[in-house]
């Protein structure tokens, strides 16, 4: 291996990458758009969900219950006349949940104070939107309990006793504290995952297309007839693109910080170092995809076909810990899973190299293995 030759290759590749305005646009635009879009979409809250209400009770208590539900901004109530109306509204997607207050609601609320059974409300959720239904269920259950207590408390006579009873009415109270992210805000989670998305997807695509294009225009053959060895050619491809993407990681950290207010809790330098190691993985994958394809279209098609399930299984959008067991093993075999885990650990919990050592070792091993395969793939072409 000659360092002089390598230096020439590095210079050539860097110039070629930065000279193409389209690649530079991709390098800036993709992280920016990915951060802005993915960063804001995950939320555990319910807001402005359509709530159909059939109020057969038409009493002060039932109206207050609905008003309370609406006051939190979670639901937008809509008065409906019959169950058929409710079914139709749900089918047409106008409401995500429905509330049926029976005619005897107020009577039973009063009877409940004298020791009778509690009043019943029927709640219908649109199970087609599983996440929404789950969130709305938790929210409605909590709110109905609180509102029910408040309704009784405001009933004057029973007020004092009801509040006392209310405390034990809800069994064991749970005081919840969420560490590392007290408001359960989705933005830091998605931002730290977006690094994995951009570094796995964009990098692999850019290098795959760049190599195939060179082969298309014949410059790759020219490279191969120069005295440069395949190791030098590989390094000449990977190192400059790696450097460019490391700069991209810095750009993403700054964008996430200034635009979304998400800064890493842990060391940013450590994070950039790990990201650079991970780039070896994605870039090697790109080399492999391009070496085994005949056209740019095929390389891209392969990359996209392979990347989509990989990204889905890596825990970027849907937590990997929720998967059934065999898929969790598959997920462990995907480099992006480990990188995203490390990225979240540094970004959200501020962990250091010692705790993360096993994950980093796995990324290094995978990177080494993929780079070896990539080298073979290039050598075979000669």
């Amino acid at each position, binding site marked *: 291996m000659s360092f002089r030759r390598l230096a020439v290759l590095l210079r050539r590749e860097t110039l070629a990458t930065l000279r193409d305005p389209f690649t530079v646009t991709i390098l800036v635009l*993709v992280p920016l758009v990915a951060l802005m879009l*993915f960063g804001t*979409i*995950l*939320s*555990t809250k319910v807001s402005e969900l359509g709530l159909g209400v059939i109020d057969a009770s038409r009493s002060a208590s039932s109206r207050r*219950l609905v008003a309370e539900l609406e006051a939190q901004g979670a639901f937008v109530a809509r008065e409906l006349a019959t169950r058929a109306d409710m079914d139709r509204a*749900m*089918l047409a*997607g106008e409401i*995500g949940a429905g509330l049926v207050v029976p005619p005897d609601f107020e009577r039973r609320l009063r009877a409940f104070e004298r*020791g*009778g059974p*509690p*009043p019943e*409300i*029927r709640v*219908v*959720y*649109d*199970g087609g*939107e*599983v*996440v*929404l*239904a789950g969130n709305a269920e938790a929210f409605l259950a909590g709110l109905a*309990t609180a509102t*029910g*207590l408040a309704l009784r408390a405001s009933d004057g006579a029973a007020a004092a006793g009801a509040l006392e009873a*209310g405390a*034990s*009415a809800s*069994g*064991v109270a*749970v*005081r*919840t504290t*969420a*560490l*590392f992210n007290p408001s*359960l805000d989705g933005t830091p*989670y998605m931002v730290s995952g977006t690094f994995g998305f951009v570094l796995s997807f964009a990098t692999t695509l850019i290098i795959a297309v760049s190599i195939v*294009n060179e082969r298309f225009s014949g410059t790759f053959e020219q490279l191969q007839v120069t005295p440069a060895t395949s190791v030098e050619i590989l390094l000449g491809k990977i190192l400059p693109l790696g450097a460019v993407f490391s700069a991209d990681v810095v750009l993403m950290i700054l964008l996430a910080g200034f635009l979304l207010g998400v800064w890493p809790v842990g060391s940013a330098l450590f994070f950039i170092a790990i990201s650079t190691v991970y780039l070896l993985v994605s870039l090697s994958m790109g080399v492999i995809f391009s070496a085994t394809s005949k*056209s*740019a*279209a*095929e390389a891209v098609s392969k990359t*996209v*076909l392979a990347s989509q399930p990989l990204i889905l*299984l890596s825990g970027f*959008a*849907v*937590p990997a*810990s929720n*998967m059934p067991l065999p898929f969790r093993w598959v*997920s462990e075999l995907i480099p992006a899973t480990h990188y995203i885990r490390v990225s979240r*650990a540094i970004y*959200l*919990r501020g*962990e250091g190299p010692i705790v993360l050592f096993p994950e980093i070792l796995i990324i290094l091993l995978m990177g080494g293995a993929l780079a070896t395969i990539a080298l073979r793939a290039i050598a075979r072409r000669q």
Partner: protein
Amino acid sequence: MKAGRVRRFVANVLAIAYKEASLLRHDSTVVQNVVIQPVILLIVMGFALRFTPQDVRWAVVDRSDTPASRRLVEEIQTSGYFAPVRHLRSYGEAHELLGRGKLVAVVVIPDEFRRAAALGRPEVQLLLNGTDPLTAARVAGYVTQIASRFRAESEPADRARKGEPASGGPGRAPPIELREEFRYNATLRDRNFYMSALAGFLLTNICLAQAALGLVAERESGTYEQMLAQPATPLQIILGKLLPTVAASYVALTIGVIGAGLMHGYWPRGNVLLFYAATLPFILATLAIGTFVSALARTSAQAVFIAVFFIMPSFVLSGSMLPYALMPHGVREVGALFPLRWYQILSRRIIERGAGPAEVLVPVLVLVTIFLAMLVAIRWRMKPRLG
């Protein structure tokens, strides 16, 4: 005269379609897209992706260590969401394990738990790992629900003997009983959420990739000029090029529908013919966007880049992967610009809820509008090059 022109138009389109179809048949990437992709997505989306937490790693710091506290732990454990419980000695240990991501939740039961229960105010603390907010919120919901039903002080057998009702009466039950019902998906299976949107994922991939590469690849290999020399108008060329892709899309769609049925027992609840008919405007709109990209791009690499970075956000922002109602305003409206948003709405309505034509009219009209707008844009973009 008029009939002759129509016949010539159709004949031209079909001739180009025939040529394109025979090209596609020999293209291995198309086979991958149309056959392998549905199978991969059916497996991944049907079996792997879950919003519901499974085997949640949790621990207990039980400072009270009474029968009541042990019963509470047991009840949380048997809810089915949790992995076997770990017992921790101290708060510090809990914090450390949460910090290293080894645990998702820790329940701390205070030493005065029993005394508080006797007074009617039992309380426990739940420490959550907020790193993954979706899971954390769900776990908090489970624990809160189990705890709210838990009677720390009661001895059910005792009360039954005394002839008292097990629940009921102030202080025994929540003040309002919720009778819950989940329509269309009674057990809230996450799989249904993905399966009812599967078609959107498949068709976006196929249509965008094919259409985006269509014109640009011809231009690169120099056959674009040859094509223009043919006695066919640009409109005929585009239609002819897109026709085989429409056919390929329906093949993939059929594989998706039948695969979901055979693999997951998930058959469409609504009319399949209506679903297939309503799919056409989506295919056309997506193909039109792909063609526009193709007309914009200078190389096939660029075309594919633009297509890919259109595909990913459209998956996420359309509501196919996560419900769009959870997204903040602004992002939600951006998502409405993607055809996939409207297609996933109509596909969920027909497949999951069994909706009829009236309920999907609005999304279909929006898709047709997007298609027409893109046609105008393509026409505007292609003119100077063909002049």
